[in-house]
């Protein structure tokens, strides 16, 4: 699971009002290099919950992201590289996602978060 996905996912178990952001539990992580696409990064930034992303990145060892993003920063190669790395290259391979409200645990195996709900949770 990439941090991009983590930023978009929420817990929608029945009865949970605020299932966002999901806490991450990391057992193993990997860095998988991908090609950087600056135009995509500049577009996606407004859709991210930046503080959530920043905290998750720090947890996975990607420090050094600024507290807020400015249009000038988005032109800087240096920042874009860091941003790209944290957003798309860091992958949680084994671990779990935990709902902040109900504490429901969604396991991540082989890089795939299992968000299946039980019948009573729908």
């Amino acid at each position, binding site marked *: 699971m990439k941090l991009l996905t983590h930023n978009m*996912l929420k817990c929608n178990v029945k009865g949970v009002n605020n299932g966002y952001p999901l806490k991450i539990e990391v057992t193993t992580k990997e860095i998988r290099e991908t090609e950087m696409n600056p135009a995509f990064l500049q577009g996606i930034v407004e859709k991210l919950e930046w503080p959530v992303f920043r905290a998750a990145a720090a947890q996975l060892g990607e420090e050094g992201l600024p507290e807020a993003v400015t249009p000038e920063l988005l032109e800087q190669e240096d920042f874009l590289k860091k941003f790209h790395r944290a957003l798309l290259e860091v992958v949680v391979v084994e671990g779990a996602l935990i709902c902040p409200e109900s504490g429901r645990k969604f396991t991540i195996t082989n890089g795939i978060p299992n968000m*299946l709900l039980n019948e009573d949770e729908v």
Partner: protein
Amino acid sequence: MSRPEHVSPPELFYNEREASKYARSTRMMQIQSQISERALELLNLPDNTHGLLLDVGCGTGMSGSVIEENGHAWIGVDISKDMLDIAATNIKDEGSDGDVVHRDMGTGLGFRGGVFDGAISISAVQWLCYSSHKEHVPKLRLKRFFQELYGALRRGARAVLQLYPETPQQMELITSAAMAVGFTGGVVVDYPNSAKAKKFYLVLSAGQPTQLPRGKDGAGEERPLFHPGRRSANADTVDYESERRGFRGKKRSRNEDVNIKSREWVMNKKDRQRRQGKEVARDSKYSGRRRKGKF
């Protein structure tokens, strides 16, 4: 044609064996990528944008690679773990900007609001019409799916769902579920005259009504099959008929100017039957002529 929907639920049908068969079949690959290309075309994203797309029922990620060739990132959801394992391996090997989540679309999608620039789904949504567990009510599952899909899309974004409805009733069920949560749009049919190449695309727009694209029919000329409502000159409203029906029997002849059994009427009828492929006597100077009266 056999339908996997009748065999077993998707999480069981697409098991390891079926998934690897699916992923390695070049025929499947070709069909799936053709459909994905067409779905992206129908999404009608502005040129040179690099957005984030949702792929519902992503399977082994074949549609994802098409999305990526077009410069977008994607997140896929699917119910079959075996399919997703293959997708995950492909993502890893290809250094792809995609990601997958194990999820049953009938229980909602579980994404934050307004994050996707579009959604595609290739041959998946018809599965929601089948009930494999006692608790699964197709209507409710469709409602939940469309609600969350609507929520996850940016306002004005489109969703293009290619599907294989088994009956017209299924299509009706799916379309009405989509309309009930606020989607606008309708069905686009490609190659409506071909049994094999015929494909249904449900083109939905979240937020603002857009012109429905037209289906391909292979002849170069494109035509729409049906619209959700007839558009009037003012695009926000729908025309209504002010003309009264009158007596029941009055509208029997399509063209009221033509007298029944006149030569013109007979010729029209013969033409119509010829078009229907029926055997029709050839036209001559006697066609439609009255017989001489008996003495």
